[in-house]
């Protein structure tokens, strides 16, 4: 599985949505991406890429696109 596939799967499984819902998706846009769903997403991303995210990055991950930007940072080194 490519990194973008892993990334998309984490979103789709955590929020029970499909691929076409992903672009532009923001925190609190849908019922399932609330503060509970957010921690589910973080756990899924950490599992998928075998990383541990900083608390500040967890809070800053406020959209589908922002998440890619954060995971691309040096300390996580995920290339999309």
């Amino acid at each position, binding site marked *: 599985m490519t990194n973008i596939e892993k990334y998309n799967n984490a979103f789709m499984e955590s929020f029970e949505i499909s691929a076409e819902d992903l672009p532009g998706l923001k925190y609190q846009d849908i019922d399932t991406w609330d503060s509970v769903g957010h*921690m589910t997403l973080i756990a899924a991303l950490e599992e998928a890429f075998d990383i541990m995210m900083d608390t500040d990055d967890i*809070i800053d991950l406020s959209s589908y696109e922002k998440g890619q930007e954060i995971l691309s940072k040096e300390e996580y080194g995920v290339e999309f």
Partner: protein
Amino acid sequence: MTFDELLTIPPYSLDHTQKAEMLTERLGDLTRLHKDKCEEYARILEGLSFDCADIDSYLDIPFLPVRLFKERSLKSVSDDEIVKTMTSSGTTGQSVSRIYLDRRTASYQQKTMVKIVSDFTGSSRMPMIILDCPSVVKNRAMFSARGAGILGFSLFGSKKIYALDDDMKLDVEGIKAFLEQYSDQKILLFGFTFMIWQHFYKEMKKLKNEGITFDLSNAVLIHGGGWKKLASEAVSSEQFKASLHDVCGLSEIHDYYGMVEQTGCIYMECECGHLHTSIFSDVITRRPYDFSVCDVGEKGIVQVVSTIPESYPGHSLLTEDEGIVLGEDDCPCGRKGKYFKIIGRLKNAEIRGCSDTYADKFK
């Protein structure tokens, strides 16, 4: 000063003069913001003949009784901007506070909490045992203060496990396996004071007599939610700590004080047993007969101010708790800011707190 600028300052680094200046500016801005955006708040200020131009110090800003958030729906944003409504913990039949959050205020709350708690636990996340049952965070529609507390602290957990099942029974095997798996790491424990005592401590004490023990000497416990029930069982803070140390070797224990009306600004107990105000908020004790400010060491009604709330007018509130400010900038732990203790609830006040409202069922 904007809140984002405030977030760049270490949370216990400002002395009395610097903090007072910062609070006067930020809380003055919030007072004017809520006056513009919240009609009810503007009318309250008008009723008090309060003019925002008269704010020489943040101590001059009127305080709203916390009860008002039960009786009135107070918000400074339009309904479509609200992303989360938080409710206070209440016993059955009690009315609850409703606190309306937009994206910005909700994010400030989380960022503030991270700054405060990291000062005590370090910034790295730890395997976490939540001393509660999983169902507390499942009902998303009604987000209680108890669920919000657990979720807020979950940020600090890397891997997580609930210590109790939905019948509040201790998951002995689960905890044992978890501790074995992470035996080389520091463990974070989080829960509410009464639940910890009733369902964790008492159970572990029983297990110890049966020869089953857990080693939590390399763990840190953060707990909050009220002492009323334990005080009525004559369990003091010292005894709470000593008892937990006795059954599982736990030695690093921090109580915290906070309320849903000012989520994010929690007051953590330091190594010296004092609750501390960070730069994000302050505690002022007031005399009950004229609401003048108490001296250090004098018991009074606790007023809390918070630099966070932009979506609801809750930046200056009068609680129903009594407390004593013990000092400022000179706690032996080295943290600047006021340090204080909470004595208890005012007489005839409602039962509040995640721990005490739950404990009300155990009468």
